[in-house]
């Protein structure tokens, strides 16, 4: 059986990370997604290195399960074709701050398609003094104080590595689109949605806003996170681990100290803190006694430390980099990675959609498209004459 969104049509008028990831998720779930690209292509096609074949790896990872049409939206022909695509679509995913054609704004579309769910993924929201500013990943992270949870106070800011603002906004956008499609049957029409990079970051930090409201005591791992030093895990002889005393009792603690040959620590002035605190990043004094644990762990491998700690009631995990992640047995067991035949690359390993549906499974149906690869096919579906034949201004090249 086809994916949960089979039968829905989406049009993507965005590039970079947020819009493309949102639209790809719709495609992974079975929707027919048409990506409208300017003649020079999605900006992410030029990102990197690294490249796979001749295309940027990030672009390939965010654009499978789509068809691509090139349209020059600065020409009447391009705008007209885009309008016809939107007229028969269920969903539009749009970057409103970089839209080349004002005629394709939600307001300008007017009555073209009252059933359309129009999702704008903006930089800062559709109201307020910054509504028209183009968004960006690092700006959203800085402005939302996300960089206060990394690095050291007084030193240069450190960015969250995983394009958090863009990815979070994409994930929230998919939620909103699906909710609006459900509501469409109730209210009889589509509607406009706005999700922003900035707002998504602020929503993802909302636990902190509650913590800052009026705490009984100014400590605890939410509040501590502002003032602690960088957390690199617990280094052992051959790598780092996540380490927590978890439910370890005093006997287990004493046994662990003995097995680690750390009896010397009982003479350290910080020992009372070591013995009372929850090891791991959430502990009140974890950063104060961290070096004592690491002095003990330095004599053993990660596997040895994890085995000892777990035996006595602790909780540990390896601190994997991507190489270790890709090769991990559990990761293989639950199919975190799947393969896709990408023209010009061959069999390519890709991250699977996260959801597992019993009846309507997500599928990897299409590789990321070449620029304009499906222009002719899509124009034929619309019954529009190809501009290549007519040589009109807004051409639709087929590569």
């Amino acid at each position, binding site marked *: 059986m086809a994916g949960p*969104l089979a039968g829905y049509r989406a049009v993507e008028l965005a590039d970079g990370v947020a819009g493309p990831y949102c639209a790809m*998720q719709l495609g992974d779930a079975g929707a027919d997604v048409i990506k409208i690209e300017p003649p020079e292509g999605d900006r992410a096609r030029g*990102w990197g*290195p690294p490249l796979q074949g001749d295309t*940027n790896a990030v672009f390939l*990872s965010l654009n499978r399960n789509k068809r691509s049409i090139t349209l020059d939206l600065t020409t009447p022909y391009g705008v007209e074709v885009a309008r016809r695509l939107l007229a028969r679509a269920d969903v539009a995913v749009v970057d409103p701050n970089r839209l080349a054609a004002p005629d394709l704004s939600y307001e300008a579309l007017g009555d073209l398609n009252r059933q359309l769910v129009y999702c704008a993924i903006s930089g800062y*929201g559709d109201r307020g003094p910054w509504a028209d*500013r*183009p968004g*960006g990943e*690092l700006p959203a992270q*800085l*402005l939302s*104080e996300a960089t*206060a949870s*990394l690095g050291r106070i007084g030193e240069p*800011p*450190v*960015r969250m*590595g*995983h394009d*958090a603002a863009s990815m979070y906004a994409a994930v929230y956008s998919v939620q909103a689109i699906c*909710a609006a499609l459900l509501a469409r049957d109730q*209210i009889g029409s589509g509607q*406009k949605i*706005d*999700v*922003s990079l900035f*707002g998504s970051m602020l*929503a993802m930090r*909302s*636990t902190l806003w509650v913590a800052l*409201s*009026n*705490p*009984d*005591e100014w*400590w*605890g791992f939410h509040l501590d*996170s502002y003032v602690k030093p*960088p957390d*690199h*895990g617990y280094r052992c002889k051959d790598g780092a681990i996540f380490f927590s005393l978890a439910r370890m009792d005093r006997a287990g603690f004493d046994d662990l100290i003995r097995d680690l040959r750390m009896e010397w620590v009982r003479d350290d002035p910080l020992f009372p803190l070591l013995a009372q605190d929850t090891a791991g990043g959430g502990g*009140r004094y974890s950063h104060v006694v961290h070096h004592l644990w690491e002095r003990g762990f330095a004599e053993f491998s990660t596997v040895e430390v994890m085995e000892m700690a777990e035996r006595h009631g602790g909780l540990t995990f390896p601190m994997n*980099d*991507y*190489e270790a*992640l890709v090769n*991990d047995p*559990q990761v293989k*067991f*639950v199919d975190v990675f799947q393969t896709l035949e990408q023209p010009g690359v061959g069999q*390519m*390993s*890709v*991250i*699977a959609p996260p959801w*597992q*549906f019993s009846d*309507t499974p997500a599928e990897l149906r299409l590789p990321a498209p070449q620029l304009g690869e499906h222009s002719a096919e899509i124009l034929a579906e619309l019954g529009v004459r190809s501009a290549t034949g007519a040589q009109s201004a807004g051409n639709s090249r087929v590569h």
Partner: protein
Amino acid sequence: MPGPLAGIRVFDLTMWMVGPWCSMQLGGMGADIIHIEQPGVLWSSLGAGVPPTINGTSIGYIAWNMNKRGLFLDLKATEDRSTAYELIKSSDVFIVNMRTGVADRLGLSYEALSAINPNIVYCSITGWGETGPMATRPGADTQVGYFTGLWSTQGATGEAGQVYRHFTQTDATSGNYAAQAILMALLARKRTGRGQKIELSMLRCASAIQTPRIAEYLARGSVAEPLGSASQATAPDQAFLCEDKQYVGVSVTSEAEWKTFCAVTEQLQLPDDPRFASNVARVEHRAELTAALEPVFRSKPQFYWVMKLNAGRIPCGYPMQFEQLRQHPQVVENDYIVDVETSAWGNVYTGGPPWHFSETPARWFGTPMPGEHTGEILDELKQPAAPLAGRQV
């Protein structure tokens, strides 16, 4: 106008963060979330009083259980289990994030629940998946983040990767993906005429949110070093120190923006330099590019660059803090931080709805005490034609 999910009922058997975060999103969109707590046990993070607390309650419980009604059910007691089945008959969605096998032992497997309500969308969230060597391992936000390498691509230049100290990101991410899946299954129900089972592991969710970086690793075949504030994929895309010792972050991600950036910074010679002629070239020569730009930014104060870059429509930003954010007109006008009244903890700040719907607005309302609505919900259950009947296919 009610939210987009008005009429949808969710039986919310969740605890700690990942499950509660998921149902809280659905509640913000107008679904009726019935959050189950076991009397005397308090399955959520409430009881432990994990600091920081407000009136003795962990702020985690307060932050992750907004937009819900609270119901006490002792699922090991026969009578309460019958009540659960009655509620599930009129529910659209069932969410559970207990360890693999626990729901089954309580008589709440998908097979059992779909037999009494074929329309039910059953969502199970686990740490590591329901099969494999780690299936029964405990797993929560921090562990999943460490395990999936979330830390590995971020850190000061020349240092090892570091963990994002505001734990919650992998829990919230997984809860958000779960909410997506539930909404997708509700849409599929219109076509297929029945519900289905959804399985999510935090392992797959935390990996999916790192798609761009992991894709780069797979293409490169080696692990990248952290770059401080700089992007792996684009340049110049980093923070610069200004004359007044403050930072401005700037993201140039297209060739058009690069040309404008060079005009704004009056560095008109740079586009002609072959080392900086394309993004690929600039990424390969990031160190030289940074060296060329650092003295430029250090020659003027932060506000100068913010004004100039905004005038040129180059994405830029600077570090803000909560105390500025909560009063900032951009935040206030978009309801991104809201002040919510709660029954037991006074008014608290939290993140407002991240989605703006033009026709069916989302709204955020307070967190219930565990079991706060038990009487009200049981009364509704006694009335056959009550507003309880969930929206049917």
